[in-house]
């Protein structure tokens, strides 16, 4: 029963949990920045008129989007050391996996963004003498990015929640830290409740901000 709960253990393990949260945030930010960068390149490739490039990008995006993230995490953790010949820590493996995985999702958002820029704008860019890459850089991508900002942020909230899945390879994020702390104090239940609360507060605040942001525009 709830009255049996002992929440004092949370105060004692806060520093430890904070180190876990730090990794969660680092993973989120890395995968967001790297994912948006790679995702934009993927989107450009998918929309490119060079057929093999477009096909390759489409395949990459579709494959990533139809495999469960847990499986992708397991795949990378298994395959990267085989390819590089050296073992890779769970944390580093997670950073690489999430960047490459999220890129597929950001790519689809950026593609929609690029397609949302009107033909007139594209034509106007070329009309003043921009090359393809100049037109992308100065005219199309800035507008695409601005149009898709709320969706990009929403995807980042999803990403933030998904980072908890590094549990599968034992990387020490917020969730794993709480599990370790729960075992140390023999209080797993309190830890799960606390961690759920932390995730909820952060995600709720972020999604509320995104909602306000998209309403204002």
């Amino acid at each position: 029963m709830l009255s049996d709960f002992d929440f004092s253990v949370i105060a004692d393990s806060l520093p430890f949990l904070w180190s876990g949260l730090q990794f969660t945030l680092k993973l989120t930010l890395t995968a967001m920045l790297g994912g948006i960068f790679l995702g934009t390149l993927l989107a450009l490739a998918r929309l490119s008129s060079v057929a093999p490039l477009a096909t390759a990008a489409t395949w990459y995006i579709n494959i990533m989007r139809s495999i469960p993230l847990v499986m992708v995490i397991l795949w990378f953790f298994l395959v990267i050391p085989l390819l590089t010949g050296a073992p890779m820590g769970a944390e580093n493996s997670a950073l690489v996996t999430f960047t490459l995985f999220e890129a597929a999702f950001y790519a689809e958002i950026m593609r929609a963004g690029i397609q949302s820029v009107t033909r007139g704008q594209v034509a106007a860019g070329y009309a003043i003498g921009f090359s393809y890459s100049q037109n992308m850089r100065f005219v199309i991508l800035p507008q695409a990015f601005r149009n898709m900002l709320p969706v990009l942020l929403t995807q980042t909230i999803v990403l933030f929640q998904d980072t908890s899945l590094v549990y599968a390879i034992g990387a020490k994020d917020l969730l794993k830290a709480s599990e370790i702390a729960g075992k140390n104090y023999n209080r797993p239940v309190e830890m799960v409740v606390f961690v759920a609360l932390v995730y909820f507060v952060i995600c709720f605040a972020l999604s509320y901000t995104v909602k306000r942001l998209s309403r204002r525009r």
Partner: protein
Amino acid sequence: MNYHWNWGIFLEPVKGGDETYLDWLLTGFGWTLAVSLSAWLMALMLGILVGTLRTTPSKPLAALAAAWVELFRNIPLLVQMFLWFFVVPELLPRELSLWVKQDMPAKEFITATLCLGLFTSSRVAEQVRAGIEALPSGQRMAGLALGFTLPQTYRHVLLPCALRMVVPPLTSEFMNVFKNSSVAFAIGVLELTFQARQMQEDSEQGIETFFAVTLLYFICAFTANRVMALIERRTRVPGQMAGQMAGHQTT
């Protein structure tokens, strides 16, 4: 790459048992299907109900539905699994709590289904709400003007149109259910991901294992996609573009 390939591994017996690895994977496939399909059924029913309530004029009901969506949407699925598995039994009355922890049959399966069903219901609810809100307000008025009560207006006018409209977005949710069911490995459901990890450790043939499991997930996603496409074709209304119940036709 220094890897010892062995594609015949699936037919070899597991260590210290007389099953083959293929048996493990098929068991896992079965549990994945069981969890996903029962969770999807639950999510559809609850999601339609909650999404509908969000659009009703009743403030308390709409607020309750909104709270439902926010609650299940803002906590990672894996953490929700742990909440249902470790925390919820503690909140029950003592005898019930003991029974759940010790005697409840298929405890992992029930917990995972419940958790995944509720999680998905909040996403279905959002789609259903968006579908209802996309209908022209005149449809609601036309239903009421004909003498329908509000529930009748929902049942005969708004929901049939809104649900047709949300079939395409629900397709990706249906595919997500199979993907998300993989999280159930963490509370010990013997589904595909659980079996994959177990087979990898046991056989040390990780690539073959993951390849087979990934293929099975592909089959789920592909089948889900085809089923929804079939439903979309079957429910299409003559004279109406696919997914376009909202537009006025003024020709």
